[in-house]
């Protein structure tokens, strides 16, 4: 008869990191569904590719590090990284983009820094930025929404395009990207940016069919999907509501200010909210606890900074992919933000540092 000895507390809320990760993965489903509806199978294929790759990469590195594989391989964090990466990659990008990105995310960004909880950068975003810088052609293979495409893009065609670069019928990726009216498509953000540099006003640019009725066909719904998922996470208390709210408000005020100053060359606040990866970033990327700030005050500053950076990069940057760059920059500043936003401990006067 043995007496069990353990340290207090003896009871536990019974929450697990893996359960938290699973919840976050489920919350991406509405957004993924919207992506599938408007842009086809591409992203889902990339998510699958990336997931297989991360499991392989995680398994290899964990074995090399002599870690407990059973518990760490399926803690969900790697899969979540794969999902986020797969969502971010252009749907028609070649297969090796997501494989290479996933390898980079897990091996370099996550495990080389010490594994779960020790990575200073968000693995998915770091991988995305790496891919964007290294393979700009493949990483800008954004396709128009399905209803604006001149070709029928079914599952087989998508699969074939991703693995061979051509559809079954032999059309190249470039041909697929051609609009029904005969010109190559870009994302709404990209289109706006290009148009503005060409001297057009915002309202003139918005006449482009890519924008549709609102802020970009498909993109707005994808964003709404991620917004729903995010609200679900907040309700489930899986993420702190402070971060997305602070981020969205910051972005709102930045774009509002710019709109007041120069309405002709600035997109509306809602355009910024519902285009690109805004909602994905707000609810799924910035809320990554590992690479974010820890205290509530810190999170407000962290997310507000991200909002500002997103706006600045979208407005003045060379790449339209503002979220990834802003997140990485904020990740860098997180330790500093933490240092200066330590809460006052009970019974201590507010410390002056």
């Amino acid at each position, binding site marked *: *008869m*043995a*007496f*069990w*000895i*353990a*340290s*207090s*507390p*003896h*009871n*536990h*809320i*019974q*929450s*697990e*990191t893996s*359960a*938290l990760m699973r919840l976050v993965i489920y919350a991406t489903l509405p957004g993924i569904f919207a992506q599938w509806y408007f842009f086809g199978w591409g992203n889902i294929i990339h998510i699958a590719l990336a997931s297989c790759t991360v499991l392989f990469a995680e398994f290899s590195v964990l074995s090399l590090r002599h870690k407990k594989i059973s*518990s*760490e391989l399926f*803690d969900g*964090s790697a899969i979540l990284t794969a999902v986020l990466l797969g969502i971010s990659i252009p749907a028609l990008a070649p297969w090796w983009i997501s494989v290479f990105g996933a390898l980079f995310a897990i091996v370099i960004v996550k495990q080389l820094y010490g*594994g*779960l*909880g*020790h990575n200073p950068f968000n693995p998915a975003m770091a991988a995305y930025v790496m891919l964007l810088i290294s393979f700009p052609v493949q990483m800008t293979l954004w396709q128009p929404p399905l209803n604006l495409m001149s070709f029928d893009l079914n599952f087989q065609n998508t699969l074939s395009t991703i693995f061979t670069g051509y559809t079954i019928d032999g059309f190249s990726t470039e041909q697929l990207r051609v609009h029904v009216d005969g010109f190559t498509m870009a994302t709404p953000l990209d289109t706006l940016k290009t148009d503005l540099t060409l001297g057009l006003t915002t309202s003139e640019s918005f006449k482009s069919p890519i924008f549709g009725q609102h802020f970009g066909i498909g993109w707005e719904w994808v964003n709404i999907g991620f917004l729903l998922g995010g609200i679900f996470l907040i309700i489930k208390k899986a993420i*702190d509501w402070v971060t997305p709210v602070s981020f969205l408000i910051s972005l709102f005020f930045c774009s509002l200010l710019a709109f007041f100053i120069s309405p002709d060359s600035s997109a509306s606040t809602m355009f910024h909210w519902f285009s690109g990866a805004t909602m994905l970033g707000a609810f799924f990327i910035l809320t990554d*606890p*590992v690479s*974010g700030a*820890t*205290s*509530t005050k810190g999170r407000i500053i962290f997310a507000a900074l991200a909002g500002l950076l997103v706006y600045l990069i979208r407005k003045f940057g060379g790449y339209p992919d503002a979220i990834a760059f802003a997140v990485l920059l904020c990740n860098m500043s997180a330790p500093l933000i*933490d240092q200066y936003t*330590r*809460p*006052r*401990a*009970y*019974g*201590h*006067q507010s410390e002056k540092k």
Partner: protein
Amino acid sequence: MSIIERIKKGHFWKFHGGIHPPEQKFLTNDKPIRTLDLPDELILPLQQHIGQRGELLVKEGDKVLKGQQLTLLSSPMSVPIHAPTSGIIKAIKSSTIAHPSGLSDLCLFITPDNVDKWQERQSCEDFYQKSPQEIINKIANAGIAGMGGAGFPTHIKISSKPSINYLIINAAECEPYITADDLLIREQSTTAIDGIKILDYVLQPEHILIGIEDNKPDAIKALKKATKDIKKITVCVLPTKYPTGGEKQLITALTGLEVPSGQLPINLGIIMQNIATCFAIADAVINDTPLIRRVVTVTGQALAKPQNVWALLGTPVNYLLEQCGYQATKDKNLIMGGPMMGFNLANDQVPIIKTTNCILAPSKQEVSSENNEVDCIRCGQCADVCPSQLLPQELQWSAKAKDHVQLQKLNLFDCIDCGACAYVCPSQIPLVQYYRIAKAEIRQQQMLDVQAEKAKIRFEARKKRLEQEKIAREAKHKKAAEARKASMNKKNEGGSSATSAVAAALARVKAKKASAQAAKNNENSITEQPTQDIDTKSKVAGAISRAKAKKMALNKEAKENNTVVEAKVVNTAKSNKTDKDKDKDNDNDNDKKARIAAAVAKAKQKSAQRASSIEQKPEIQSVVEENTSSRDENKKAKISAAVAKAKEKAKAKKLATAEIKDSQTSADSEINRQEKKKIAIAKAIAKAKAKAKKQQKEETK
């Protein structure tokens, strides 16, 4: 007054963080407190509180009565213990006590005689007749220590009284499972309120607040009913949240004040007492019943009949479990205290003590015994629930890295071990365990640091002292050397072999001293000093014995010759040329050297003698010199003696600082012998002088 107005309106403050673990109070809060039969044996640890144990008043085999005092209130922080029933002290030995690490301590083993005979008691109907000091003494002698968990001696807490604003009665009982206070209030509210009245009389606080969580409606009703005529007392019903019952958290929740870090509530004019302690106080003051029993919640799903019981102090845990229908499983998981802050018991023989409010025997489903710790993902939930507003995850990293400086910067010592952080941690990191280890390590390091600091101060002081001594010694040495030089210059005019012989003797002494000094300079530790002392002492002793031997030889020679010194010198001079005479001369030479050595030794002894009187005034020195030299006219010998003396004095001074007594005794024993020796040596010196003269003559020839 705004605080009290707010309280009267039922508005309270919020403290940061907190959690809502499953309460599980339903297991026991619907049954009355049960009185148990006497167990076969009671194990009373001598110390059941924070502080020192009292002095033992009984011995093995003594018969004790119920309520009899067993240990003495010997120091302020001690609390006596009392016999919970009448019986015989079977043994006084070390046994496992209620301690997280399963430590052992001295315990009294009492075998009850089942008569349960009380010692004589004097109940006090009206405690207002007594002076507050009398009441405090009564409480102290009744062995009352805080019954909420910490076990701080109650009489200490209530003796310190500047003006008290708030007396807070802690009835929050925020830990899951525990219902001991709840039931006690429901069944004994009158006595508990009497205890509060006694505290009111002793402390004279401005307000009395009873803090209780809203999950105990019956107890709240009972308290409100019992206090409705007392205006001073306010029953404050607080929302249920763990750890509302923490001292600092309850103060914040009730008054909005924060106890400054490192200070006590008394600094804010607040005193907190547990409601069970109030009951014990009333029992002690009014009924003259010392603290010998308490309510213990015996609960958990491994029990068939979880219930609150009146447990005598010293009742072994297994007896309580047996009474409550414990179904033993393969792995026994027994917790003393609640699930949040309690600790596992190393065996079930551990006795109930004054601070034991709960015995928890959970089933496997209730308390997971697996450790599924994974890496921290910095989710920050721990910081959200921390009632001390610390950053548990950062603390955890620093604790793992053993970064003690950073830990203290992160206010590790403001952690109250409540366990809220570990409770919510999704990575299931046993955070509190890390903090406990870190705290223990830091405390130990601090202890070592204090010791090291003391040693450093001691060492610095010694180094300084030695340096000063060295400077003083060098100054004296220099003086003596100058004097020697001056005298040597004089002597050089009549440069003789005798001079060189004397110089050689001087050189020898010097060398000896130099080596001694070198040894002294090299060594820095105290331990080596006595060795050196012994060394020097043995040298002195050797010199003395040598001198004695020479003196005897001289005396013999003097008898044989039976002539005046001059005549002898002439004789020796005459027979100088023959081989035989030469040999004799050599002998004489040797004698001379020995005699000089003797003189030096004598001087050494004198200076040692003088050193024993610590004050070494130059006047005394000169007087002594005169005395020693009054019998002989040989300047060289005199000077050499003086020089040697001076040198030896420096040495002796060194000795004196360390071992005055020893040198004194050895010197004293030699005084008489020296008197005799002086005469002989004077003769020898005269002889040497004559010889020198003769040699001079020969040279001139």
